């Protein structure tokens, strides 16, 4: 059971994910440089937070052309578990693995603070250790986390149980208070909050542990 963490130039939560998965939870973790293509031996891939390629043009817009992401896309389409956190979520939407887009926060400020979330695990593999309707707290830290999708598509996502995380108090203007979205198969999860920042009691809460531990089977 090994986890891969993609490293783009400008990723800055790559080491934090590894601290959470390997340091706190004991899951072997390997970094994947953005030019790599070898995903062998990996059972799940995390796209970490940060500012891939400086987030020039548009968050995640350049990252989607990285060689490693071609492989990640194929991996996800084969049913592999893929998690996009913050900037990673933005990359997943640019890549077309998840619907919608993330734009500048309402009020335009970067926001770093704890956020209360309601979980509806639905089909999501990453959330299977949480119960339906459970409230958890994970930190957010983003300037462009306002989830946007047209009303019809939102309805469709809601109907198929893809809106798996919602803010109790909407911090950024996301439609439908959306904080996290899964695909129909439930193997891909994108979320703006940082589960890796909620695994270590020395620095905060531990509500993110079960998300990353879901890989343990």
């Amino acid at each position, binding site marked *: 059971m090994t986890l891969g963490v993609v490293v783009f*130039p*400008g990723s*800055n*939560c790559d*080491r*934090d994910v*590894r*601290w*959470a998965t*390997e*340091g706190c939870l004991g899951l072997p973790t390997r970094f994947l440089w953005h030019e790599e293509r070898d995903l062998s031996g990996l059972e799940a891939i995390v796209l970490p*937070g*940060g*500012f891939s*390629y*400086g*987030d*020039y043009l548009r968050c995640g817009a350049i990252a989607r052309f990285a060689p490693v992401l071609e492989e990640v896309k194929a991996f996800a389409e084969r049913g592999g578990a893929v998690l996009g956190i913050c900037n990673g979520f933005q990359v997943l939407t640019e890549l077309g693995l998840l619907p919608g887009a993330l734009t500048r*926060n*309402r*009020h*335009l*400020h*970067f*926001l*770093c*603070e704890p956020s209360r979330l309601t979980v509806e695990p639905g089909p999501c593999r990453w959330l299977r250790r949480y119960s339906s309707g459970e409230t958890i707290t994970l*930190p957010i*830290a983003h*300037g462009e986390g306002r989830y946007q999708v047209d009303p019809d598509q939102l309805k469709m996502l809601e109907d198929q149980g893809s809106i798996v995380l919602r803010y109790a108090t909407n911090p950024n203007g996301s439609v439908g208070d959306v904080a996290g979205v899964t695909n129909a198969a439930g193997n891909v999860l994108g979320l703006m909050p*940082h589960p*890796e*920042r909620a695994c*270590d009691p*020395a*620095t*905060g809460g531990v509500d993110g542990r079960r998300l990353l531990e879901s890989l343990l089977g």
Partner: protein
Amino acid sequence: MVATTTFSVAEALRKEGLSQADYDEIVRRLGRAPNRAELGMFGVMWSEHCCYRNSRPLLRGFPTEGPRILVGPGENAGVVDLGEGQHLAFKIESHNHPSAVEPFQGAATGVGGILRDIFTMGARPIALLNALRFGPLEDERNVGLMEGVVAGIAHYGNCVGVPTVGGEVAFDPSYSGNPLVNAMALGLMETPEIVRSGAEGVGNPVVYVGSTTGRDGMGGASFASAELTAASLDDRPAVQVGDPFLEKGLIEACLEAFKSGDVVAAQDMGAAGLTCSCSEMAAKGGVGVELDLDRVPAREAGMSAYEYLLSESQERMLFVVRAGREEPLMERFRRWGLQAAVVGRVLAEPIVRVLQHGEVAAEVPANALADDTPINHHELINEPPADLLAHWHWREDQLPEASIDGIAIAKGTLGWAAVLEKLLDDPTIASKRWVWRQYDHQVQANTVVPPGGADAAVVRLRPQQGEGSLTAVTRGVAATVDCPNRWVALDPERGAIAAVAEAARNLSCVGAEPLAVTDNLNFPSPDTDRGYWQLALACRGLAEACRALGTPVTGGNVSLYNETRLSDGQMQPIHPTPVVGMVGLVHDLAQVTGLAWCTPGDAIWLLGVPLETICETAANEERLSLAGSSYLECIHGLVTGRPPRTDLELEVRVQAFLRLAIASGLVTSAHDLADGGLAVALAEASIASGLGATVQLPPGEVRLDRLLFSEGGARLLVSVPASRTGPWQAALERAGALADQAWAERLGQVITEPQLTLSRGDQLVLTSALAPLAERYEQALPRRLGARG
């Protein structure tokens, strides 16, 4: 043969901020007249920003040595030994003038610059702090400056992946139009040896890495060394543009390069760009450097030698590399998408020689630029300025009567709860959540105490890379920045002493052992009697307090000429603001205390100067005062009086006791008494916890406002669990805190109900539910900043 250029010397001197005497000295040192590029090199190198030509004699009084000091002033940053093989680099630097004309980029590049000072030493940046000053937010321009500065800091720090964990923000009309932006960075050494800046090894290649060189930031160091006027907005090209994404790659690539052992010396290109880095590296190494401008990666064509040499384009570094190792080294940088080029070599002859288009564009002895730089001598006046002496005559009995019901002001009697609300609504005192929620304070996964949680930030000492990065670590580093600028304005020496004492106290309040200081001297022009006197006395105060507290100064930054020429031609100087950045060691993270109350029933104690001081000497009476207090300014509209004298001896004793008590698990919270005195400190601990407090004030004759709101050093609040009462009392007795001249008194206790109540005897002085207090405290900034976000 050095290229000659024709130019008007008088005009060029004015542009470079040099005097005729400087010019004569340059001619003497060169043995000939300088060409235009050479004169520009002297202009930046001899500016206050680069060579401290006004302040150097004063800085010599600072204590700079101690058992933990590995690197003191003179290198890119100071370094202290944390034990267990860990070394911490840290430094503070200002970006005031750039932020005044372009707040977003000015502040952003201030962060970028201080980070480079840290990783140039071989340390990975692990935390950022900042000290900010603005004019009142009632003025839209100040709102715009604050929005821009905070967004700029957030942009750079968040993107580069270094948490911004703490800082301070204060407001005063003197900063209108001339905000202060001081950024401090901490880094953990990742290389076994500290990377130095002195060039070595004749023939070794000089390698340029990072971003390209352009015309941005031309002459920024000279610009930073002159006062601001309305025309300063035309100097916007002197403000650089930052690219934190590039810097993130630069950090990784530099640390890799340093670990390879191929880098002999490194210097970042900050103020004065290539000129400064070449001449400093040459002068420190006692060698020469030849630089070929045709090989410097440029972002625009047709730049003159002058422009190359004075460009302050960001995210650039200069290395001396072991001969033969330059190719693999440059490859590391290209992998991160960065420029890398061999641009010169180390010479035996101690000169800086600049080539362009096959000609010698400049040739200057390295030490002529960097060593023995000119000093502006100023006469120190013997007496404080007359207006300050007049202020010092102010006495508390000049205030209207203070009764149990409140204080008489023009509009009637203001009750004590209303006074407290008004103080909590003062932007300088109020919650800075609006600011720090815009900073990523968690990235790197080591932030143990977030902003607002305690008197100092605490970061765990878990390395990001390599050995130890995946194991739990129980040690941490604490950091704080402090300056009571109103006190410094009223008494520079006492104010500076208080700055150091408060910084150390803030560290002690989280249980950290204060180690060392980096200081940022933000002052008006030293060319006036008053300006130089302020600077000289503040330096004297800093030196005295650093000595008393055992925290040597390892370097810092001097920013002078912080004044604005108003439309009527008058100069408006800022409050002199010597910001003290201090770092401390936390031996056991499990014991770190926050400022919030923890458990109902815990006893609240005041340590330090007692509330009702019974004094044997007049000097002791001055330890506490309403003079220069927040209360005096916010409620009575007065900035007057002689601020209190910090009792450094008591300060040392109280702080040592507190640290011992924290380490022994005797206290569950600790909070410094600062702006707004006892009442504000009680309110802050209550608001942060949601728990109330009942407090009994001592009976007696002392004015109620003095009991509630007086300020002074060596004072703090702790809460003690009921289960620890026995050992706590024993510890106090052992420390002599309850003997003659007692310095510990029990004030009351923490309660479940969200209500703050202070009584004196059987009379109720102040009672308030926490909700309205919290509302004032939390909304003060959002309300003034348009309630956005």
